[in-house]
């Protein structure tokens, strides 16, 4: 003869055990879920910064392409894609016909890095000056690219190229 009281007790205990196991499994899964979310968020964070870096590199490349335009390029002797003609630029700066030529650009400037001088170039101070500004607006984000600033130097009787940079500012680029 079966003891019914003991069978009932055994059944409810089994159910309790199953419940316990389910709770443990859920807790472990939640824990792994949190870890996964944490890991994925770190991964996506680095991916986002990588994309941002690549976008910036592309902009730097675009800015440098300005050095290859006819208004900027140094075409004297050897081919040099990154050489800018400073003599051309100082003359271009005072040309009224070039006003509004560079549309959608809020800042366009070349600046010497080495040797260091100070002040904006004028026909009087050139070449012992630091920068030539062709366009100066406001509300822009600027990007810089390294170029060589070349000119004829009477003192050495030939070409002198110096380290410089092109700075371009674009309106509304954030």
């Amino acid at each position, binding site marked *: 003869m079966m003891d019914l009281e003991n069978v009932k007790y055994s059944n409810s205990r089994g159910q309790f055990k199953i419940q*316990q196991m389910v709770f443990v499994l859920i807790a472990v899964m939640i824990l792994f879920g949190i870890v996964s979310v944490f890991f994925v968020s770190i991964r996506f964070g680095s991916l986002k910064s990588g994309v941002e870096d690549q976008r910036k590199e592309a902009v730097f490349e675009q800015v440098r392409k300005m050095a290859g335009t006819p208004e900027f390029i140094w075409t004297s002797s050897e081919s040099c894609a990154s050489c800018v003609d400073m003599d051309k630029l100082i003359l271009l700066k005072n040309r009224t016909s070039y006003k509004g030529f560079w549309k959608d650009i809020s800042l366009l400037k070349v600046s010497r890095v*080495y040797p260091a001088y100070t002040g904006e170039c004028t026909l009087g101070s050139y070449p012992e000056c630091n920068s030539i500004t062709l366009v100066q607006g406001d509300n822009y984000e600027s990007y810089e690219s390294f170029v060589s600033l070349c000119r004829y130097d009477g003192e050495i009787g030939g070409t002198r190229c110096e380290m410089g940079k092109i700075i371009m500012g674009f309106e509304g680029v954030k």
Partner: protein
Amino acid sequence: MNKDKRGQEEIVGFVLIVVLVVVIFVIFLGIRLRSPEPAQKESEIVYQFLESSMEQTTDCVLSQNSRNVVMDDLIKECYSSNNLCSSGETACGEVEDTMKKILNNTWKVGVDYLYKGYIVKANYFVNSSNQEQNEEVFLITQGNCDNSFIGNSYWIPEFPGSIIVDVKLCS
């Protein structure tokens, strides 16, 4: 009494599982944070810097009635013969001096700046494809550098091999 003991055993088991998972998680996190993958990126801006600095006209005139030498030619001169400039400075001395001045005017490095240091080195390779190193041409270092940097290389052909100028900007 027996029921109580079994209950206690189950709680201990549960706690053990949780502790085990937490320990695994902490070890994983510790490994990830302690040895981050070296962030070494090829940088367009560093390449632009290298290309432009190689066009720099230096103060070195190697022989009478000749013109001032540009940086990449002076680096070749430094490797091949290290002749004296008309100022009395050696070609290698002039390369290092000019390069240091350019670097100082381009990037401020230190604890308070975006870049903590830089390493600029030029090596001559007989066979550049398998990077068989032959000779160091020059080395300029400033600040602190660990395994996180942006950098790039510039090749100067010098028969039968080439000189490779490397710049590493450490962050």
